[in-house]
């Protein structure tokens, strides 16, 4: 669990840390859209350069990002190799039996690899520099305009922050229940696959039971303290959109425009 860097916040006071979480979230969405325009060497280099500059601005050590990519490397390589083998066209570079690697397949594979790498780097940057709670606030605030279409913005934001809040609690519960079952002679992670899967049941069922109980208690505690939904509710942490947020979004839009003109049609 310690290895999973995705979703962990590193405190800091850099320009990126101080951006409004809404602008960071919007930039992330835009980034994912424009990355599909990066389909040749120049555009990819441009994307990479932009990403590296933003990473430098965040003042977070590069090793955190490398650790963020590490657990994903298996999936990335799997997809890349898949692309390489199953995209056909262009000249044939290598042919062994029915496996044929073509120039088109190779470039497609490189593209996919870059896309994965960049998206993971950028989203790691987002979670490393933004607290989970302010991300939940940002989601709520961005969904507010959609309330006319009956989108429950406040409830979605609340659900997000509640689930984030209970991650450590659930981890504690899991450790406690695992210890109790180990004391009853269960061996976790031993034996064949069937035995391994079977040994999960004595954790999962008590974990579900205690989570339901906890959710019930939480709901009652919230109501007892007068909670009645988002209407008229004020906030202790208020989001503030400033000039630097405009600039941040503009820079991503400018990057998008540049990519649009440089991409292969």
């Amino acid at each position, binding site marked *: 669990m310690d290895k999973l860097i995705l979703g962990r916040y590193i405190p800091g006071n850099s320009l990126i840390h101080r951006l409004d979480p809404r602008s960071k979230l919007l930039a992330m969405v835009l980034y994912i859209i424009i990355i599909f325009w990066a389909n040749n060497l120049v555009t990819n280099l441009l994307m990479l350069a932009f990403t590296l500059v933003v990473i430098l601005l965040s003042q977070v050590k590069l090793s955190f990002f490398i650790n963020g990519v590490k657990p994903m490397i298996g999936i990335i390589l799997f997809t890349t190799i898949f692309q390489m083998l199953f995209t056909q066209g262009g000249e044939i570079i290598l042919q062994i039996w029915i496996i044929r690697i073509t120039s088109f397949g190779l470039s497609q594979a490189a593209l996919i690899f870059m896309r994965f790498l960049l998206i993971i780097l950028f989203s790691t940057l987002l979670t490393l520099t933004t607290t989970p709670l302010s991300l939940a606030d940002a989601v709520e605030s961005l969904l507010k305009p959609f309330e006319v279409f009956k989108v429950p913005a406040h409830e979605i934001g609340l659900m997000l922050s509640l689930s984030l809040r209970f991650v450590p609690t659930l981890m504690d519960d899991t450790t406690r229940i695992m*210890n109790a079952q*180990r*004391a*009853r002679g269960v061996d976790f992670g031993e034996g064949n696959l069937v035995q391994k899967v079977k040994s999960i049941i004595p954790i999962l069922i008590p974990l579900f039971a205690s989570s339901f109980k906890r959710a019930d208690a939480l709901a009652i505690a919230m109501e007892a303290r007068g909670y009645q939904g988002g209407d008229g509710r004020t906030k202790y942490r208020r989001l503030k959109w400033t000039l630097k947020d405009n600039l941040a979004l503009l820079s991503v839009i400018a990057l998008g425009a540049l990519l649009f003109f440089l991409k292969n049609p």
Partner: protein
Amino acid sequence: MGITLEGVNYTYQKGTPFEGKALFDIDLTIADGSYTAFIGHTGSGKSTIMQLLNGLNVPTQGTVYVDDMAITAGSKNKDIKLVRKKVGLVFQFPESQLFEETVLKDVAFGPQNFGVSKERAEELAREKLAMVGISEEFFDKNPFELSGGQMRRVAIAGILAMEPNILVLDEPTAGLDPKGRRELMTLFKELHQSGMTIVLVTHLMDDVADYADYVNVLETGKLILSGKPSDIFQNVDLLESKQLGVPKITKFAQNLRKRGFQLERLPITTEEFVEVLKHG
């Protein structure tokens, strides 16, 4: 025999930024057939010691001997499993470990993990459920349909069904009503009288005085006092300065002494106090 801790140190999450030392050079013995209590404040290392007793934790330094088996930092899981069979561990709020469809199946789960046949395990389960006072009509019920107190008993039966020689209890009566509490404490007393070694972690000093024959006092990972309850509870001021307190009757007797009542030793149970009053 019993359990012996020799120079035991324990550091949790070693090698991470969250590293912290929980136990410092603990030497102690839990004699075979004794009723040993552990008392200490939150964070004193009580729970860590409990988990060392049956190999859920292995000491970072030093050795834990359970009968003739030694647990050290390098012990293998396979060897430790034998220890877990000998030392039954009842966690705080053990009802959260129930998961089977029926009460009987849940109690029979433990012994089967140690290679007991299904038939024999069910036999054991019936026997132990009767022992904790769960009647036959509940055997086929879903454990989640029971009341909190009944679930607690079923969970304890689940540990007893493994037929441990040593029973370790972490605040087994927390959250129970006075009647349920008394019944469970009586059960543990009877188990002790039938030859089982009992280790009780608690913060109820009256329980220590009433049931235990030996007590260890822990503070921030160190063993600061150990001995017979009747000797340990003479240190009223020391224990109170550690926020642990003494049995109610001991405190009462100390107040009497302060007002000039002649008492050589402070009694720790009401019966003892009555004796002192009768015979001086």
